[in-house]
């Protein structure tokens, strides 16, 4: 028997067809087995994949094998040699190329009849009309910021009179042997922003420790990157991907560590600290991506109930999953919609409020701008207005008590409304 490209492989979908040609005991009663569901899956359903990294590579391959034939993938990154241990669609010869393009090309080469459209872009490059064309969005990102953006964007796109405007968002994330997958139905289920307080806050070291009382090798590295680099190279931005820069930091931190009798500074640690590298392994990515794609398949075909709405996976001690319904957070700035009361002390000034907005787990607004009904209180951009409003930073918060203050951040597509009490 000889086969080749162009010839019909009629039994190609034999495995997936098992669960499309008949329903099961856990299948929704509206499920119509057979022709129509296959047609929707294989000809009509359009899926957007955000991220072509460790998770994204797995996701695009799984979705293509599952039978989805119209896939789009977005990623702004290019391929680095350290990606090769788990991003299995890339080869040594791809280093430097666009991740989205390389992943799309590889999958189309391997699997016939699938069209993968690559976008070497930031998600923020596109607007509602772009996102509106998809039936589903699957997200495999390591950036909290990007997830908050897409979550809020999809939430704001929902139009109650147009059911098509509700785009299920399936989100996966991993760290070492741990991970999670979840299904977000914007406006219906809890959203990404609702669970922001579940994230472990990034490790930060107080500046006085870094400057005066270093104890750990990390403190010495932070000293080199945060304090020394800007002093020595005032007009040059530190590039975490430039080995010359890492080398410079390594030598500086080693000198400081020696001075203070601190052990443990090395190349790998320097890189880990400045790039905030998350350890990552192929197996966990595979598990989480598979779970996300399985939910996408169940949502698209209704062949079985989908996840409601959160699965947590922990793999270092045996295997443990916790599947539960994450609840909406009333004070969620995206889907809560209410003005939040924030308790402040009388001696606090506007600058303290900025700090609270940056630090508190449920806000995490990195560059907050503030305004009230009388106008701007403090603006981060443009520079002229920043300079003009800077004088307000030292004003007492007691001046604003009882008022509603709007918080915005250019990187986040939503407004946070606060009442100081």
């Amino acid at each position, binding site marked *: 028997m000889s*086969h080749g*490209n162009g010839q019909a*492989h*009629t*039994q*190609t979908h034999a*495995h*997936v067809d*098992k*669960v499309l*040609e008949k329903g099961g*005991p856990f299948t929704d009663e509206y499920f119509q087995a057979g022709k129509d569901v296959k047609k929707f899956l294989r000809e009509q359903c359009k899926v957007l994949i955000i991220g072509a990294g460790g998770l994204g590579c*797995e996701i695009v391959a*799984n979705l293509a*094998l599952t039978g989805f034939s119209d896939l789009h993938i977005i990623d702004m990154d290019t391929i680095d*040699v*350290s990606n090769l*241990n*788990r991003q299995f669609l890339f*080869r040594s010869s791809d280093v430097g190329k666009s991740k989205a393009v390389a992943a799309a090309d590889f999958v189309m080469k391997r*699997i*016939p009849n699938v069209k993968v459209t690559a976008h070497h872009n930031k998600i923020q490059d596109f607007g509602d009309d772009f996102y509106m064309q998809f039936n589903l969005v699957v997200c495999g990102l390591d950036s909290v910021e990007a997830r908050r953006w897409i979550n809020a964007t999809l939430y704001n796109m929902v139009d109650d009179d147009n059911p098509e405007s509700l785009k299920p968002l399936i989100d996966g994330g991993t760290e*070492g*042997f741990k991970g999670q997958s979840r299904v977000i139905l914007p406006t219906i289920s809890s959203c990404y922003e609702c669970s922001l307080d579940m994230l472990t806050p990034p490790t930060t070291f107080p500046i006085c420790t870094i400057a005066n*009382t*270093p*104890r*750990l090798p990390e403190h010495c590295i932070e000293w080199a990157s945060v304090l020394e680099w800007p002093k020595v*190279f005032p007009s*040059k931005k530190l590039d975490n991907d430039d*080995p010359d820069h890492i*080398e410079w930091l*390594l030598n500086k931190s080693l000198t400081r560590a020696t001075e203070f009798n601190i052990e443990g500074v090395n*190349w*790998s640690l320097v*890189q*880990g600290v400045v790039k905030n*590298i998350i*350890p*990552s392994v*192929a*197996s*966990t990515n*595979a*598990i*989480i991506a*598979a779970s996300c*794609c*399985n939910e996408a398949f169940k949502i698209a075909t209704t062949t*079985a*109930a989908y996840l409601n709405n959160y*699965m947590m*996976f922990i793999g*270092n*001690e*045996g*295997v*443990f*999953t916790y*599947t539960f319904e994450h609840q909406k957070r009333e004070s969620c700035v995206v889907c809560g919609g209410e003005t939040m009361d924030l308790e402040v002390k009388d001696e606090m000034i506007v600058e303290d409020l900025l700090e609270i907005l940056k630090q508190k787990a449920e806000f995490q607004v990195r560059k907050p701008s503030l305004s009230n009904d009388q106008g701007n209180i403090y603006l981060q951009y443009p520079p002229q207005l920043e300079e003009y409003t800077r004088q307000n930073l030292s004003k007492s918060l007691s001046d604003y008590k009882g008022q509603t203050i709007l918080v915005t951040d250019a990187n986040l597509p939503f407004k946070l409304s606060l009442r100081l009490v």
Partner: protein
Amino acid sequence: MDLEQITSAEFKVTDQRPDHKTRRYDRQLRISRLWAAAGQSALENARVLVINGSATSSATLKNLVLPGIGHFTVMDDQLVTDADIGNNFFLEPESVGKPRATETVRLLLEMNDSVQGEGLVKNPYHVLETQPDFFTNFSAVILHNTETDLTLKLSDLAWSNHLPLFSMKTSGFYASLRVQLPEQTIIDTHPDAIVDLRLNKPFEQLKKFVQSTDLNKVSDNDHAHIPYIVVLIKQLDEWKKSHDGALPKNITEKREFKKVMDSHRRKGVDEQNFDEAQSQAYRAFQSNDIPHQVAELYQDDSLKNLSKDSSPFWFLVASLKVFSDRHGVLPHPGTLPDLHTDTQTYVHLQTIYKNKAREDVEELKSILIGIIDKFSVSINIFSDDLIGAFAKHSAFLKVIKGSSIGDEYTSPRRDVISSGISDEFTESAYAIYVAFIISDAFSEKYKRQPGDCKLEDFENDVMRVNSELEKVTKDLCGKEPSKVISDSLLELVRGGGSDLPNTAAFLGGLASQEIIKVITNQYIPIDNYCIIDLIKSTTSVLKM
């Protein structure tokens, strides 16, 4: 000197930069948080055998090839079909009609030049008959959807040769992973944190350090930089004096303890060390006795039957027991978490703990030498690194005693099966376990998976499995099957032994993770049967 000159002068290339290999595996070696160099080297020296070049097998191998396993073999005498290219990413349209074994291996190898692989177009039954020794040349044997009698034969062989075996099954949205391990003794279990401050039983050097600090006689600045460990030990000392040597027992006493401690704060001084003392006070309420799971190890038969053939691990446990009988504590791990203080004090305190750990390792080693001497075992098999790692992780050691798949078949676990068919358990794992057993019984009889048939024959298969189910329920438990088991069985038959791409990827991810744990002998593998339900998106671990 302008900026460019400064730049070129400061950037001198040294030999500190990582080589290509380190950069490739950087994320998994990172700060020894995943499996570190020792684990990587174990992985690179490992050889695994996989029976069947299916989608699940490829998905498993993918996650072993990427991190750099040494060698893998795929044994499969089937030729690639259309259905295979539809669910297996490591096959392509051109593969149809060629051997599955060689085709999957060829495409898997594309991912990593440093890995070796071999596709064997052979029938495993035939190899079992002609050269059974072949199967014992591997670090692990991996099966996917193999027939029951082949699974039993191979698992018996693996069991008697002390080889780990992983048996995977898939059907639709259901999957299972049975791990059959010879005794697994794990030192580096990667606990979240190894913290042992000895607050309750400070050793001599630590006591001296604490006594050398007088809370009342230092300046405000120095007071705010006294390590919280010192604050806690002093407070605990005082408490014990007034409470007959007992620790704070209940919530009232614990609150009282914290309140008194807080009264030592200096007014108007920002004292982060006292904040830390409050939040870490719970550590002072713990005894530093031997942890329960370590005490259990001391009762293990392997220790009672110590002989010259015992593994190094058990000689180390024997030494540990002598050590802890002598001191009432385990060796100190030598670690100190970051805490608010000045550099000099921190480094001093760190040195005190490190020296204690070094002393303890030395003592453990001399005990060990005494013990192995009686058995004429050479100290050369115990590197200093091994003894050091053992001492450091002594509170977190883990032993897994395997159980054989053969035993599971010859003497079925009535309690598990009974839970599976009972109405009391709405949890699906037991029911899915029973459904897999029924499916095995069907396959033995009809030489195919239930549901792996034309659509019009489906109802017939359902009738057949239901009569199998009734037999099992009546024979074993004398009960009628519940709805949970009937539904799970029906769902399994609907899957028809299929290998859905997402189920394959999920199970492949899970299995490869467990294989890596066993090969590197790090982290804690499942013990010993994992059920995956991708309708409910849950996993459960049962012990057979």
